[in-house]
């Protein structure tokens, strides 16, 4: 198949925006295919962070001097940008965190510890990443609540019958991913959230694999909470977002105390400010927030719809080629319309780490392991998988290169 297919939804010239892509790894040009773990950063994001440190660095919300006010303003502009990107009704509904994991831990702690009683139920799904699983185990342990799981079908969809029977048990909250980080499945959350709400169940959405890849509109979803990470959407590490409905934020207590989040501090007790400050104790990641702002600008310039098409085309190519490879089992939906740009597979008789190692020797970066989803791998009946995940800068020829190496892997090990 030629490289210049009808596939160039996003021109290859986008690669020039990403300095790291010019690296040579093990004597081959880097083919970075681990975008579900983290994306590379465009020059604009790198420059925005550098510019902040070179021209505007000061602590936010603390000084009366010009520089501090500038830093505060840039930080709050970033919040506004995120609110706009997610179509949140109000900027105050955007809490900056270190990442998706911290955002979910915040809800599990602040909402969970005050709301859950012994015997209450929390509903998760078998396809959750550990970040949307372990925080709930911790809060269940602390409160005596119990965990249930929505089953995953053989093809990698949420089992809607299982969902219905679990919702009938009246859990307090459903914590569910919008896109599976192993299967690539895009879950029909709009429908699921409506059903959950009909049962009086709140819904937290893990959107780490979704933001910047598929359209995410919190008002359309009507989710109660939504979390994502900056670094998976071309932004820096160390910044993530929690969106929540105002009624929940108002009712929740802080989970960390410190500077920036207080109204008044006395010797024995203190009072808090309002959200978002209430949930952002300490000096915030100002530079990272600015980087995220620029990353969202980058994504919007390309267009989420275009990115979606580009990644779907590449996933379709990867899926098609992998399905023709001997000894390969591909996980997740067969229909590219039901999945994002990541494809996980196993090669019978070869451990995924060995597959990834041989790919690395050809300069191809893929992830191998359980991808922080051990419950799902148990369900799939495999210890680990190899995952190819694309981003805006990946090309058809990189996907071909990755699949071509499998012949060499087989020669070596089988």
């Amino acid at each position, binding site marked *: 198949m030629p490289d210049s297919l009808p596939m160039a939804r996003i021109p290859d010239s986008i690669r020039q925006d990403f300095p790291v892509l010019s690296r040579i790894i093990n004597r081959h040009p880097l083919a970075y295919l681990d975008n579900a773990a983290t994306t590379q950063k465009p020059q604009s994001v790198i420059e925005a962070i550098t510019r902040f440190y070179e021209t505007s660095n000061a602590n936010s919300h603390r000084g009366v001097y010009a520089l501090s006010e500038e830093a505060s303003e840039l930080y709050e502009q970033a919040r506004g940008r995120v609110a706009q990107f997610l179509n949140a009704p109000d900027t105050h509904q955007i809490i900056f965190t270190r990442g998706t994991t911290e955002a979910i831990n915040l809800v599990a702690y602040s909402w969970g510890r005050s709301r859950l009683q012994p015997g209450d139920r929390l509903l998760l799904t078998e396809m959750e990443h550990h970040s949307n699983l372990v925080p709930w185990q911790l809060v269940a342990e602390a409160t005596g609540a119990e965990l249930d799981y929505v089953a995953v079908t053989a093809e990698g969809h949420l089992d809607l019958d299982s969902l219905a029977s679990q919702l009938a048990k009246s859990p307090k909250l459903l914590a569910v991913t919008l896109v599976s980080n192993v299967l690539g499945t895009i879950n029909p959350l709009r429908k699921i959230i409506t059903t959950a709400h009909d049962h009086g169940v709140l819904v937290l959405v893990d959107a780490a694999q979704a933001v910047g890849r598929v359209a995410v509109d919190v008002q359309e979803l009507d989710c109660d909470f939504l979390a994502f990470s900056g670094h998976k959407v071309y932004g820096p590490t160390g910044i993530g977002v929690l969106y929540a409905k105002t009624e929940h934020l108002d009712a929740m207590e802080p989970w960390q105390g410190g500077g920036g989040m207080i109204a008044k501090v006395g010797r024995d007790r203190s009072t808090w400010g309002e959200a978002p400050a209430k949930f952002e104790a300490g000096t915030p990641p100002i530079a990272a927030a600015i980087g995220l702002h620029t990353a969202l600008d980058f994504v919007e310039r390309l267009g989420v719809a275009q990115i979606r098409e580009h990644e779907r085309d590449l996933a379709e190519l990867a899926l098609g080629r992998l399905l023709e490879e001997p000894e390969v089992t591909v996980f997740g939906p067969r229909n590219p319309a039901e999945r994002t740009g990541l494809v996980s597979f196993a090669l019978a008789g*070869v*451990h*995924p*780490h*060995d597959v990834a*190692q*041989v790919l690395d*020797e050809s300069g191809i970066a893929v992830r*191998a*392991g*359980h991808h922080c989803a*051990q419950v799902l*791998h148990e369900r799939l009946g495999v*210890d*680990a998988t190899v995952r190819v995940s694309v981003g805006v800068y990946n090309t058809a020829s990189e996907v071909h290169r990755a699949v071509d190496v499998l012949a*060499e892997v087989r020669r*070596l*090990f089988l």
Partner: protein
Amino acid sequence: MSKSLYRDVLLDHLRHPRFSGKIEPADRSASAYNPLCGDELELTLALEGNCIREARTQVRGCAVCVASASLMGELLQGVSLSQAETYGALFREAMTSGELSSKDIFSLRPLLEVRKHKSRVKCALLAWNALEECLQNFQTTS
């Protein structure tokens, strides 16, 4: 073959792991698990006095992990517990320094290639972690 990590010796041990399986009942056993990749193995020992009469490992893991357990198995048959402990210490040292300081563990040489790939060093050490646990159990219970 440019795939230097997978030298012929390691591939041979991968395809034909020595002393694999499980001794039942075992005098000593220990499991080791690598949470990073989900690899796991179980080492079982049959003892005769202070000597390892037989050592077997049951491995679910990658090529490096399987080959390392197999090479360890070859070394352990019939040696004393204190000798086994010494081998473990020597191998760990070699994996850190890149130098084999003793001819006794010369057979482990192909594993040193793994040092170039930091994330895989744990795979090579997994079987040896289980051995260490077996020996610790021995010291505390005897």
